[in-house]
């Protein structure tokens, strides 16, 4: 087979990249080698179009034990000899084509990133985006994705403790499925994704290798089109039972000290794990591909290198200790095969039955080594002019606010998500404290360290669409706010950057400015970015999705009993809004979904004001002055109040203080940096003292179950709860009945 530039292009490489490969090798690559470069230099593995800007994010912090990008996931010190390991990753394109397996293997992949470092995953979260829930296609995708996440996570045995989901038209063809895993490890028991020691044996452990997921990394780096269904073999198939055994076996092997390094096999399988571990250790490897256990006969060298079969790990073992490792894998009934050894010259040599199939420098394949880095152009999107021309005065304030409120709590973005989360095991591990006592972030008890972890994922992508810079900040700010409102101290961030095609300068503008905003906010909240994932090409012929830089944040509670919950506790408690009411309906669910306005600016936000507000909330919680704290987000103040009432079936009697404010802005506006707190009257004086000059206003009192707004009776909490609880189910039960 003659290899030409057109072969390279068929594999997704650009002509200039083909030239670069020829220069590196000093010859024309063969097909196997070219395939290796095509996946390793895909956006998914190389970050070639994003790394320039990723490097501008704050990546240092006193608690950070490894820097972003150094290992498979971030590692943050939580004291007393323990560290938290966490990462978020996308599985958007596979889920668009095959929602069940796409989502399932997304969950499997992110957990592997955590336990390949030696940590036991103790919590998972997910961040999902779909099109309009009225559409059959959306119901099909939602049903499959939720089933897939549940199938994998429930069997693997890690609780799904939190997440978020939004339904917006722009995600109709290209849904987003981002999964996050959080693990705990004893400092000193971590494993590095590195190879070292000439002559040390290299093992492949876990599942046998098949042709599934062939070239998935390259597939993830192209637009979704109507022909994407033909890429079905690029979607992997998951086996959570195998992964559960792999987890236990890996965590049993690590304390023996027999391992030099370990790297999970996700995107680009054997080629990725061998090249990354070799490049990191400055060594090479000789691999005999015929020794790889396979699921089917006659697999070719390039297929073995690129296969994305799940539940596999590459292990580099100290020579002489092979038997110990093999013994443990035998105990767990898992294949464990030596496939090669570490060499000293930095070259990867892959043999098949003695025949050299590929010979490439490990360094040349990887990010930070030979992989190309691009500077992309960007220009301000044209739709910004529509945003600038929005005039709120043309939106009449509705007369019947109760009617609007009822519609708002039935919007799928706001309504109860129990149809989704009841399909996830949220309690396995007996560490999720938020089932019986909910908070803005999920609070997970890390038992062995006896500390609380506050975890959350956040991103309102409509805000980012309206203003990428501020929207990026707001995503980080909301995550920090959720953690602070739960009694935690923000520790660090992992991000999943979901954008459209980076070769479109307007999309790239969104990317650049969202990252600038995120970076600024991460500095403010002292939450370094520990790692994450970039997912470009989230677009269909209809255009790109909203820019969606999902933030996964982890916070710490030194004492789990210091947690704060979001629900009103007692009739008669006084309700305050911490922060300022604002005459702002911009980019709210109300304006977008009820009034039907697509283009409006992002809601009011000021980073310093947000930070000051969070400090106040942290102070109130520390001094045990407040009974509940719940931040104002989608749907505005009314939704915050009603959500605070559900758990204990209480209600509220509130009035707007400022008659100059639009009523719709008062109750449904989404101006940022606001939190609803409830205070026992006995604590009133201390509350006011702690608040000092920070803006706050008294809204009213907690009732025993009635809802009254501006002196009008709005019914009982049970009536509101029924509407809130059943909105999503109505769509989905109808779908399943068909």
């Amino acid at each position: 087979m003659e290899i030409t530039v057109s072969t390279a292009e068929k594999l997704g490489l650009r002509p200039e990249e083909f030239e670069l490969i020829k220069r590196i090798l000093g010859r024309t690559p063969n097909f196997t080698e070219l395939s290796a470069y095509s996946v390793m230099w895909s956006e998914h593995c190389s970050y070639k179009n994003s790394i320039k800007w990723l490097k501008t994010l704050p990546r240092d912090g006193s608690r950070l034990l490894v820097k972003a990008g150094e290992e498979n996931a971030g590692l943050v010190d939580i004291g007393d000899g323990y560290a938290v390991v966490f990462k978020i990753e996308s599985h958007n394109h596979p889920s668009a084509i095959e929602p069940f397996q796409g989502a399932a293997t997304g969950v499997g992949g992110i957990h592997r990133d955590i336990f390949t470092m030696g940590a036991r995953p103790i919590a998972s979260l997910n961040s999902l985006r779909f099109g309009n829930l009225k559409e059959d296609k959306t119901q099909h995708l939602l049903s499959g994705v939720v089933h897939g996440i549940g199938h994998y996570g429930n069997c693997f045995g890690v609780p799904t403790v939190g997440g978020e989901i939004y339904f917006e038209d722009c995600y109709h063809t290209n849904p987003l499925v981002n999964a996050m895993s959080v693990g705990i490890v004893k400092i000193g028991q971590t494993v590095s994704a590195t190879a070292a020691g000439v002559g040390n044996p290299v093992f492949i452990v876990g599942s046998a290798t098949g042709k599934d997921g062939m070239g998935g990394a390259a597939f993830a780096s192209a637009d979704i089109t109507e022909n994407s269904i033909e890429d079905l073999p690029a979607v992997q198939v998951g086996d959570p039972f195998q992964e559960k055994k792999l987890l236990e076996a890996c965590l049993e092997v690590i304390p023996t000290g027999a391992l030099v390094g370990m790297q999970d096999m996700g995107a680009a399988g054997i080629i990725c794990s061998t090249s990354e571990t070799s490049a990191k250790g400055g060594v090479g490897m000789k691999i005999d591909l015929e020794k790889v256990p396979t699921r089917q006969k006659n697999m070719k060298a390039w297929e073995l290198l690129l296969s994305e079969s799940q539940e596999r790990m590459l292990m580099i073992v100290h020579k002489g200790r092979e038997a110990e490792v093999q013994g443990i894998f035998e105990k767990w009934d898992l294949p464990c095969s030596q496939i090669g050894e570490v060499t000293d010259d930095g070259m990867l040599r892959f043999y098949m039955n003695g025949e050299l199939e590929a010979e490439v420098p490990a360094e040349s394949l990887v990010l930070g080594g030979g992989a190309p880095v691009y500077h992309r152009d960007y220009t301000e999107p044209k739709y910004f002019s529509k945003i600038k021309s929005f005039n709120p005065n043309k939106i009449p304030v509705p007369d019947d606010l109760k009617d609007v409120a009822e519609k708002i709590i039935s919007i799928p973005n706001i309504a109860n998500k129990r149809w989704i989360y009841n399909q996830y095991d949220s309690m396995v591990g007996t560490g999720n404290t938020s089932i019986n006592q909910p908070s803005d972030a999920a609070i997970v008890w890390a038992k062995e360290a006896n500390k609380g972890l506050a975890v959350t994922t956040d991103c309102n992508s409509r805000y980012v669409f309206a203003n990428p810079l501020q929207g990026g900040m707001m995503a980080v700010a909301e995550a920090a706010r959720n953690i602070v409102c739960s009694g935690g101290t923000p520790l660090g961030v992992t991000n999943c950057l979901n954008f459209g095609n980076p070769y479109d300068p307007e999309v790239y503008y969104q990317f650049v400015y969202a990252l600038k905003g995120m970076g600024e906010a991460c500095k403010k909240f002292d939450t370094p970015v520990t790692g994450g994932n970039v997912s470009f090409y989230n677009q269909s012929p209809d255009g790109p999705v909203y820019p969606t830089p999902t933030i996964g944040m982890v916070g710490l509670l030194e004492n789990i009993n210091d947690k704060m919950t979001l629900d009103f506790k007692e009739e008669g408690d006084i309700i305050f809004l911490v922060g300022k009411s604002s005459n702002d309906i911009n980019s709210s669910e109300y304006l977008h979904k009820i009034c039907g306005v697509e283009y409006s600016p992002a809601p009011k936000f000021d980073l310093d004001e947000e930070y000051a507000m969070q400090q106040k909330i942290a102070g109130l919680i520390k001094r045990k002055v407040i009974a509940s704290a719940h931040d104002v987000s989608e749907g505005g103040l009314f939704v915050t109040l009603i959500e605070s009432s559900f758990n204990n079936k209480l209600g509220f009697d509130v009035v707007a203080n400022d008659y100059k404010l639009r009523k719709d802005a008062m109750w449904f506006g989404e101006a940022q940096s606001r939190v609803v707190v409830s205070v026992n009257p006995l604590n009133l004086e201390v509350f006011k003292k702690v608040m000092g000059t920070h803006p706050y206003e008294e809204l009213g009192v907690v009732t025993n179950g009635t809802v009254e707004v501006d002196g009008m009776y709005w019914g009982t909490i049970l009536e509101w709860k029924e509407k809130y609880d059943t909105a999503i189910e109505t769509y989905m039960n109808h779908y399943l009945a068909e």
Partner: protein
Amino acid sequence: MKFGVVVFPGSNCDRDMYDALKYDLKQEVVMLWHKDKELPGFTTDDCIVLPGGFSYGDYLRCGAIARFSPLMQAVIDFANKGGKVLGVCNGFQILCESGLLPGALLRNANQQFVCKNVFIKGEEGKALKIPVAHGEGRYYADKATLRQLESDNQIIYRYCDADGNITDAANPNGATDNIAGICNANRNVFGMMPHPERACSEVLGNTDGRRVFKTLLIKNLQLTAEPVLA
């Protein structure tokens, strides 16, 4: 009384059960490996627990493979000699598959996995809030078996609402007669779908599970234990 928690490949509530028994209920407890053939040091005063999870992946029928594991043969002998056995969730499924308990657990009526707090009613009288987490938890038995379970008082828990009313709405999986748990005729083998080990810790904000362990196994259990480690 000593507890042994059996670890099958794919068990994922084994540690939770261990933690609840050891730290919340202050019991002596050891982990047992499915490949072992004996229960050394266990007498009929002791209790073997089959925990929840997905033994062998549950790709066939839940519990259908686990019943053939080497240790299960020993557990069956142990139960037949009068030793206490508790199966929770996947453990209940294994007990039914192995014939230690009658009936079977079918796929939930709505075909979906369900995880949430439910209420169950047993001899404690008051409704207990205990979580469920299963895809195949719909208890089924033929009419004659059901009649016998009923007449011998072998139905140990039924799904109910917060006030203790046994209603269809309170049934999370479509189980016959709202059955959440049963025991054998000798009252030494217990199986239930809800997870009492998930409701034993003050940190989790629910300690109703302690009552289940007290009723079924640990008669002298103190219900108000100190919060653990906190």
